[in-house]
């Protein structure tokens, strides 16, 4: 049941300063034997140093470079990215969507902040902000303008609101002038924002 009880919410028992609040909670749980601070360090190290948008850039660069890989990715992204080792928490069900001259894809989660962690890491601050969550479904072009991106008028925008456990990866359009480049070179043109749809691929 919902248990609405704002007048005595448990968080109000903790210190009001957020840094002290987290510290108090970690200390309490550690003293009760429920948290090992070294495990927390390990989690933080994973998301600061091991998992991030270079994983997704690798997938996109390979899709640009290898038509069979691209076809397989569009057919079953979960299987394809798992084979590359990019599977795990918040990325259990992946779908790849491809930008074309006709359609530009963008991803949001209006209800919380769903995001493909194994491919892109922890979402940026703006992705989790009220402004992005509220606005991008209604005025994607004005949000794109905040990122300095202007789409041609013939391009429609398709916004994906990630309300289930499905996580979306945008495959940006491959930039002109990259013909003949290998995967490593192509990765340089793939930014995190281009894989969310708030940016475009870089230009050589």
């Amino acid at each position, binding site marked *: 049941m*919902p248990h609405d009880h*704002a007048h005595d*919410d*448990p968080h109000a*028992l*903790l210190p009001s300063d*957020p*840094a002290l609040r*987290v*510290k*108090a*909670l970690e200390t*309490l*749980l550690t003293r*009760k034997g*429920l*948290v*090992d601070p*070294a*495990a*927390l*360090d390990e*989690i*933080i190290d*994973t998301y*600061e140093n091991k998992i991030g948008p270079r994983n997704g850039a690798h997938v996109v660069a390979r899709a640009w470079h290898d038509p069979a890989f691209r076809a397989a990715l569009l057919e079953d992204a979960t299987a394809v990215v798992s084979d590359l080792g990019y599977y*795990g*928490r*918040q990325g*259990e*069900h992946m779908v790849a969507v491809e930008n074309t001259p006709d359609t530009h894809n963008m991803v*949001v989660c*209006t*209800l*919380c902040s769903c995001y493909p962690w194994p491919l892109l*890491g922890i979402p*940026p*601050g*703006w992705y989790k*902000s*009220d*402004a992005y*969550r*509220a*606005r991008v*479904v*209604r005025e994607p*072009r004005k949000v794109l303008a*905040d990122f300095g991106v202007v789409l041609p008028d013939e391009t*429609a*925008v*398709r*916004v*994906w*609101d990630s*309300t*289930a*456990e*499905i996580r979306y990866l945008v495959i940006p359009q491959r930039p002109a002038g990259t013909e003949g480049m290998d995967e490593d070179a192509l990765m340089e043109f793939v930014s995190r*924002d281009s894989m969310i749809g708030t940016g475009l691929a870089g230009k050589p």
Partner: protein
Amino acid sequence: MSRVHDMGGRFGDGAVVPEAEGVIFHADWHPRALALTLATGSFGKWNLDISRHARERLAPNDYARFTYYEKWIGGLATLLVENGVVTRDELAGRVEPSPSPIAERALKPDQVADVLAKGGPADRPSNIAPVFKTGDRVIARRFAENEKVDGGHTRLPGYAAGARGRVLRLHGSHILPDAHAHGLGEAPEPLYAVVFAASELWAHPEHPRDEVVIDMWQSYLRADNEA
């Protein structure tokens, strides 16, 4: 729109502020808040849908003023108390913490990589057969509210309630959050990506061909027979 977190389409939030790709956390305590939330999941006392609901039902004035990870910690404090993992007196520092009977479930450093890599897939076999196929016209439920639990968790955003759309793809069968968040079992059912014309959702769409795609469970939808 029955709770403050359901903000899709809301007016008045101002600009989105881009940031460099290398920025992951914005304060020293943010990674600790993230890690505490992930580590306490190992207790097995709640699931993802329960924890989402714990954040959603923060008082609206708290939800609005809290930064992102403050919401996480607020929801976590609720879950810890409601599930008897910590007491209110312990949280307030009024008593010495007592050793926990579930301390053996504490996440160990050498388990972290496996736990994060394993994830928590939500697809399940279901005895509910899909009734829609790609291209079918559908109407989203009129009320973006939990059908079984008043004020309960749902993943149907308010802006789409009652809107007409078209099935874009079937994702298979997945755990139903409206049940799973409230101890009503996993209740898996077919899940669809449904595409809505922007002109169906907004009085002033930016472009006549823009669309929004929303993942919706079968019980959120009915056939649009007037199409």
